[in-house]
């Protein structure tokens, strides 16, 4: 990377007693990037975030912020701010006092800080909510207050710890759009922790997939979805049929372990298109999903795969027990390392 990264992590390790939560993470995050850390719970992503914020001291390794080593600095000496999973709004303060808090502790006078806090509330579309108490707000509104409170002090990097986890689906989708929009307008670096692969794919410029304390794959949403490098990524980010080297050889006649997405497998009736790999199997079950149908096929050679069929008019529906042929274009077979 040409310019100094916003965040640079080197050999970052955190042990809690005998448990290694984070194991030697190296990572560069560019300024202005919307970066997601995606992984199941216990994969170390939140611990990495807490070490960037300064809430946890790394066991070894270091954290740099725009080229400056901040490993030993307290949270209040770092130019990063956090939006917490549980929002952590101060219950004894009104919304406007919550938002103005960061300015207050920096010694900004009352008039200026209230004006800036009002602007921040406007940014998250909560004008006129300043006098309310946090307990009088809905989950989505509290989320926005937490965001405004973190943004008002103009951090260089904003850390978001599963910020949408507690919201219902509709609200979550709406907040995703707004978060992305705010990030683009302000141009600051967002580091977003989530276990929701769809959320990560939707929002991020780049994604680091975490598992067991380390980064297993790093890349753009498209790279990770198209070319998952391990069976874990293939099934944590979307779903895939994963073939071991032996299975690939006997069933697909191809070399090396690989994975393939359900939407890239076709059920063919009649002649398979030229250049495709085919295999025979029996339909185990069909699941109607609305726009598409998921067909579970047991291939000869004892391998169960999922096929995603679009429900358009030309399709003949499959039924349990049908003997079918599946076809895969070789370019959709993604090799696993």
């Amino acid at each position: 990377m040409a310019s100094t990264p916003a965040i640079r992590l080197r050999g970052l390790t955190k042990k809690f007693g005998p448990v290694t939560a984070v194991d030697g993470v190296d990572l560069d995050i560019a300024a202005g990037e919307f970066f997601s850390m995606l992984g199941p719970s216990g994969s170390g992503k939140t611990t990495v975030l807490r070490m960037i914020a300064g809430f946890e001291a790394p066991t070894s390794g270091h954290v740099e912020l725009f080229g400056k080593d901040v490993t030993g600095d307290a949270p209040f000496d770092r130019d990063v701010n956090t939006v917490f999973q549980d929002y952590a709004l101060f219950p004894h303060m009104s919304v406007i006092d919550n938002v103005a808090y960061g300015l207050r502790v920096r010694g900004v006078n009352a008039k200026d800080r209230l004006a800036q806090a009002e602007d921040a509330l406007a940014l998250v579309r909560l004008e006129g909510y300043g006098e309310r108490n946090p307990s009088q707000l809905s989950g989505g509104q509290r989320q926005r207050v937490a965001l405004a409170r973190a943004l008002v002090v103009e951090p260089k990097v904003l850390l978001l710890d599963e910020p949408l986890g507690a919201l219902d689906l509709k609200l979550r989708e709406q907040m995703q759009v707004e978060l992305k929009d705010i990030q683009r307008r302000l141009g600051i670096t967002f580091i977003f922790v989530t276990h929701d692969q769809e959320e990560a794919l939707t929002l991020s410029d780049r994604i680091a997939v975490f598992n067991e304390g380390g980064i297993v794959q790093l890349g753009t949403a498209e790279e990770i979805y198209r070319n998952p490098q391990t069976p874990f990524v293939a099934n944590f980010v979307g779903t895939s049929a994963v073939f071991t080297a032996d299975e690939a050889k006997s069933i697909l006649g191809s070399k090396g372990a690989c994975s393939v997405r359900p939407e890239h497998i076709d059920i063919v009736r009649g002649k398979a298109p030229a250049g495709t790999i085919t295999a025979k199997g029996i339909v185990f079950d069909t699941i109607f999903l609305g726009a598409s149908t998921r067909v579970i096929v047991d291939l000869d050679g004892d391998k169960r795969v999922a096929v995603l069929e679009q429900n358009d008019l030309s399709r003949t529906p499959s039924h349990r027990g049908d003997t079918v042929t599946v076809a895969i274009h070789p370019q959709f077979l993604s090799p696993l390392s």
Partner: protein
Amino acid sequence: MRINRLSKTLLWAVSAVVLSFIYVPILVVVANSFSTSSTLTWPPPGFTTEWWTRALTNEGALAAISTSIIVALASTAIALLLGTVLSFALQRFEFFGKSTVNLLVVLPIALPGIVTGIALNNAFKTIMGVQLGWATIIVAHATFCVVTVFNNVFARLKRVGTSLDEASSDLGAGIWTTFRLVTFPQIRSALFAGGLLSFALSFDEIIVTTFTAGSGVQTLPIFILDNMFRPNQAPIVAVIAVVMILIAIVPIYIAQRLTTSDQR
């Protein structure tokens, strides 16, 4: 839960009997303080406010009241300080022997007062060679008052968690600013409740006080015990008992209101 009529009546009756058993004798004491008889007889033969006048001009009684209030205030002040510091140490930090320290802090409230009393008496007199008096009572009371403050603040800190403190420090506040603006407002009512309970505990303590007061200082409970069986003093004791009830009831009532309003 729905219960039938008979069970309901029975439950009412049992509750009434139990509560009467507790409160009727107290009401008798109140009545006796206005009785014309100079012994604690029932029913009172007549009404007079003579004992109230005499009690409220009795120097020994007044001195005992002020001693008790000063002791309770001082031991509560010590308890607030130490209890808060202890609860932070045991709730927010990890260190070797933490659970042992936790047990040792809470234990004094379970120890029989007589044991604490003898132990402290021995420690003050023979080991430290200190004259028994004000200071020894206050220190002795503080040993169990610390526990009530500790329990209240400890439970509050556990419930509040660390995320508010983290948010504050994330937004740029140093340790003291965070305590002043965020942590303290969160534990204020727990401190108040713990302090009131501690005051009430100290105010009516007699066993530990007996062993640590020496002969020069008399707290209110000790004054009452000393005067209870003296001729013609019984109604004055009744008056003082009523005063004690009033002083003890108010903080307990406020403390309970505070805890319930916080639990909403």
